[in-house]
């Protein structure tokens, strides 16, 4: 194995790095762009205990416990997931780590699959952690190992900050053998692990000192390097994938490539700065490095030439350097990649998706709907457009309550609906659900629809605490209805949303009923638990072109021209139809019929 080269995504390379470093415990909650790290560990490296925990806070705690016990540990999550884990993280970083600990934060400049674009280098600094920023798959692997070593050398949790583009980019990686690192067991040290005063006072100084000593050693780690170009008066400072994009411009200018972006090697940069007339920092999202340099008295420029949001590709870097007056000729300006005049193509629910009938029912109800994070967030965009708010995982249950209370106090009460998926419910919805019981008013009309599809569908079908209800191989089987009743809720009912009329009656009835009701939709995810029923077809002679079926937004449905019929009539692409029958149930005239027999 040693020395063998393979192709890996950045995510796979991090999993490999953790394996090679002798990692023992890894935990995560699924979230793009970092979800594949744990999937890869689960699939390839069975020596490592790994789990998709119920949320990121728990994942961080599991990995933290492993580190306390002397094991090398990893917690991975998307950028907003770190927010959920912040509470234990901020205190964990005060302790002195035993086994190496790396927190992988998958940032998403450009928001390819996220609700915001936060720059978690800032969280790393806020939490007094070292932050590493790799530039390709090989570095992603190497930096995972370096993170664990630094964590042990300096006694601090380390953040490996990656971006979506790097997570999903493939590159060549050299494999090395695993180095076994048995856990030494938990060595009690109350002054280090019991983070209450007076133990915590000393820790504030320790955090500062370890960062200072790391800053001094930073240039010797071999991950910050100066690449000398020919005779320029300008030094470019950059890191991560932005460095590789910059290299494509073939500029022959001096570049300081930072692998460690916090703490910065300030003394080294200060002394370098005296050799150059200008320092230009190129970084995605916030001016993090630029601000660090400026508040430490090192003059530099940066964000004034580059976008504060989105990715910095090759052409954006060229344009910024052009604005900075570094050179005059442009290779890429004025060229268009994506043609914006072509009709848009938005993501949509799969054929046979069990969310479709639920949102069709909610749309027809005309009620305001509080949304949440999951595949069902797609009900917020064209053409369904049912969701009125989407903020963060699990927030719908708190939000609907606040909204109901405020509207009541203003004399504007109306029935409200909130939707939440099962993974999201277990992630951070449960506490909001319990909170519903506090000062509950029988007149606050709230209907909660739990979309229990048995999986974390958004990120590709990882398990949830209720997956056991749908898949016998899964070891978690929390019965939602039993749980809700045990919490103290009475109006709980389950519906089969593929029995459209019954489901509609039930949901409409609960929306009408004063007080709080909970409806659990029970059909599983169409992608993970495939439906294979005979497909449906439209009889154009019966179809009245009312478009009720089209409005369910199912991918195989489209209006088309039939021979000998003047008006456009509905049609179903048999290749795409999985036979869920929802379109035939919303058809008022029975024009949509099931084809006999043939199932692929």
């Amino acid at each position: 194995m040693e020395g063998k080269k393979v192709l890996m995504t950045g995510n796979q390379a991090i999993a490999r790095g953790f394996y090679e470093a002798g990692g023992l415990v890894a935990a995560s909650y699924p979230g793009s762009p970092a979800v594949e790290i744990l999937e890869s560990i689960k699939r390839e490296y069975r020596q490592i205990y790994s789990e998709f925990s119920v949320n990121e806070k728990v994942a961080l705690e599991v990995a933290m416990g492993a580190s306390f016990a002397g094991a090398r540990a990893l917690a991975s999550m998307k950028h907003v997931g770190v927010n959920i884990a912040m509470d234990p993280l901020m205190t964990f970083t005060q302790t002195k780590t035993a086994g190496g600990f790396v927190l992988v934060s998958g940032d998403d400049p450009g928001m390819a699959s996220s609700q915001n674009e936060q720059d978690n280098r800032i969280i790393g600094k806020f939490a007094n952690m070292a932050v590493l920023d790799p530039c390709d798959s090989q570095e992603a692997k190497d930096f995972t190992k370096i993170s664990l070593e630094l964590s042990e050398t300096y006694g601090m949790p380390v953040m490996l900050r990656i971006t979506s583009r790097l997570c999903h980019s493939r590159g060549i990686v050299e494999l090395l053998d695993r180095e076994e690192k048995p856990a030494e067991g938990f060595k009690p040290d109350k002054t280090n692990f019991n983070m209450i005063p007076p133990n915590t006072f000393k820790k504030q100084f320790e955090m500062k000192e370890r960062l200072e000593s790391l800053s001094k050693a930073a240039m010797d780690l071999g991950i910050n390097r100066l690449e000398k170009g020919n005779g320029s008066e300008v030094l470019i400072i950059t890191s991560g994938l932005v460095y590789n994009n910059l290299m494509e411009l073939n500029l022959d200018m001096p570049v300081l490539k930072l692998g460690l972006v916090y703490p910065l090697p300030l003394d080294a940069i200060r002394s370098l700065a005296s050799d150059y007339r200008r320092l230009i920092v190129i970084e995605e999202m916030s001016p993090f490095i630029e601000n660090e340099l400026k508040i430490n008295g090192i003059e530099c420029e940066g964000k004034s030439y580059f976008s504060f949001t989105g990715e910095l590709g090759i052409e954006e870097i060229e344009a910024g350097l052009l604005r900075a007056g570094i050179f005059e000729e442009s290779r890429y300006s004025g060229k268009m990649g994506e043609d914006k005049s072509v009709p848009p193509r938005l993501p949509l629910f799969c054929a046979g998706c069990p969310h479709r009938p639920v949102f069709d029912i909610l749309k027809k109800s005309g009620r305001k709907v509080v949304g949440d994070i999951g595949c069902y967030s797609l009900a917020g965009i064209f053409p369904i457009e049912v969701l009125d708010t989407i903020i963060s995982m699990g927030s719908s249950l708190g939000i609907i309550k606040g909204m109901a209370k405020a509207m009541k106090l203003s004399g504007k009460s109306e029935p409200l609906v909130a939707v939440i998926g099962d993974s999201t419910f277990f992630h951070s919805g449960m506490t909001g659900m319990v909170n519903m019981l506090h000062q509950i008013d029988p007149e606050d009309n709230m209907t909660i629809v739990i979309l229990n599809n048995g999986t974390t569908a958004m990120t590709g079908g990882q398990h949830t605490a209720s997956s056991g209800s749908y898949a016998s191989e899964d070891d978690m089987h929390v019965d939602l209805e039993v749980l809700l009743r045990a919490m103290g809720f009475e109006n709980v009912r389950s519906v089969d949303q593929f029995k459209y009329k019954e489901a509609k009656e039930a949901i409409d009835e609960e929306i009408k009923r004063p007080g709080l009701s909970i409806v659990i939709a029970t059909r599983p995810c169409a992608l993970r638990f495939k439906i294979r029923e005979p497909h449906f077809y439209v009889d154009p002679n019966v179809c009245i072109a009312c478009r009720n079926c089209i409005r369910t937004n199912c991918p195989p449905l489209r209006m088309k021209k039939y021979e000998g019929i003047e008006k456009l009539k509905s049609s179903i692409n048999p290749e795409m139809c999985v036979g869920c029958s929802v379109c035939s149930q919303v058809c008022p005239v029975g024009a949509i019929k099931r084809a006999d027999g043939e199932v692929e």
Partner: protein
Amino acid sequence: MMKAYNIMLAGVGGQGLVLTTSIICSAAFYAGYDVKSNDIIGLSQRGGKVWGSVRLGEKIYSPNIPPGDADFLVALEPLEADRWKGSLKKEGILIVNTGEIAPAHVAAEKAEYPADIIERLSTSYRLYAIDAASEGKKLGSAKVANLFLIGVLANHMEIPIEAWHAAIRENVPAGFIDMNIRAFDIGYEMHDQRE
């Protein structure tokens, strides 16, 4: 000196763009190239526009292809070919699967699906159009559609056919290797550019 190539890929979420990218990467890797690639991943992209890139050469830094720098655009759907045509070099080659997938705006009759995409693009680029799903069904499954396109691509590149076959074997499910290799071979011969 190895010839460097920039390959842009575009399609609809769920069409197998990630696997397609992966096969091209593996073939380049087996042929001894440095290679980097990009994909848009995430189930939330299902049914939405997705794109990717593969770059190969002696030394590759970035997986990104700047606008107007692609040698090839492999489009799994015509509208997506239209969307990403600007990524191609002037003399670039466009390989398109002609099977149309209507976006939500078209299904909802808020936008028209352009009727003349293939003809229009063929006047500006060297274009190879294949009804890949129908070709695939002749072999037994529409799921091998993308392999015809990879075959056409391979015919224009200096990568030995053995490297392509090895890449397919590595990336597709064991039971479907033969069918995928046949689809690739048909694509390879379909528009033979060799002297």
